[in-house]
């Protein structure tokens, strides 16, 4: 089973999902990310789903769960890069991703975290 890598950038963690997610990879990501937040003392988490072709109720719920877990660990989560077709499908499915912040792309996501003072991604070029 493929594992989704968690990258550290300043006090941000960046996860870019590039694989067709199976349920086990999703659950593993949840744990890896929780560990990484504590270990790296990250203040923000960005999950890039630009390459994700579908978000079903399982993956959607996982995104909400990750957002809640990181909030408990004092980090803010932003999901970036959702495809328009995915957004349309999610709404029709009945999933609003409550509690999950979104931004159109990585750049806007980073800016959002900076504004909130939740993160200081020193390593990110201006």
């Amino acid at each position, binding site marked *: *089973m493929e594992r989704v890598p968690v990258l550290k950038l300043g006090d941000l963690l960046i996860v870019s999902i590039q694989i*067709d*997610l*199976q*349920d*086990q990879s999703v659950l593993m990501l949840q744990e890896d990310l929780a560990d990484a937040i504590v270990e790296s003392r990250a203040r923000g988490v960005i999950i890039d789903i630009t390459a994700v*072709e*579908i*978000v*079903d*109720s*399982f993956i*959607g*719920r996982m995104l909400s769960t990750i957002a809640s877990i990181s909030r408990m660990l004092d980090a803010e989560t932003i999901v970036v890069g959702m*495809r*328009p*077709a*995915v957004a*349309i*499908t999610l709404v*029709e*499915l*009945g*999933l609003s991703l409550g509690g999950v912040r979104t931004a159109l792309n990585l750049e806007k996501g980073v800016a959002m975290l900076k504004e909130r003072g939740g993160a200081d991604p020193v390593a990110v070029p201006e």
Partner: protein
Amino acid sequence: MTSAVELVIAGNSDVVIVRQQVRNSAQQVGLSLVDQTKVVTAASELARNALMYAGGGQVRIEVVNNGVRDGLRLDFTDEGPGIPDLDLALTDGWSTGGGLGLGLSGSRRLVDEFDLESKTGEGTRVTVIKWAR
């Protein structure tokens, strides 16, 4: 057109394979990108349902034509415990599997035709169709 593919759903990785095959067939039928995404998402929900509630099942993926347009028909069958109350099972938020309760009700909204048959103790069959516009 009568090209049909049958896949077994026996594990988590099969859900991914079902999604990929449905995506391919949806492209072949000429569904729009949004409709492809909707039918693949519905397939993902239904395949996972078969796995979670019946321990597995199978799906037949078929290109169909109603005389006016092409469509994609997905026929999910399992030999699980069946669904005692179909109306309740189709209610948003109703779940016996610890999920969000959007699997059946949500996938019904994502397709054009939705048919659910179930017999307690014998199994469940869900047939959905998405027509090309």
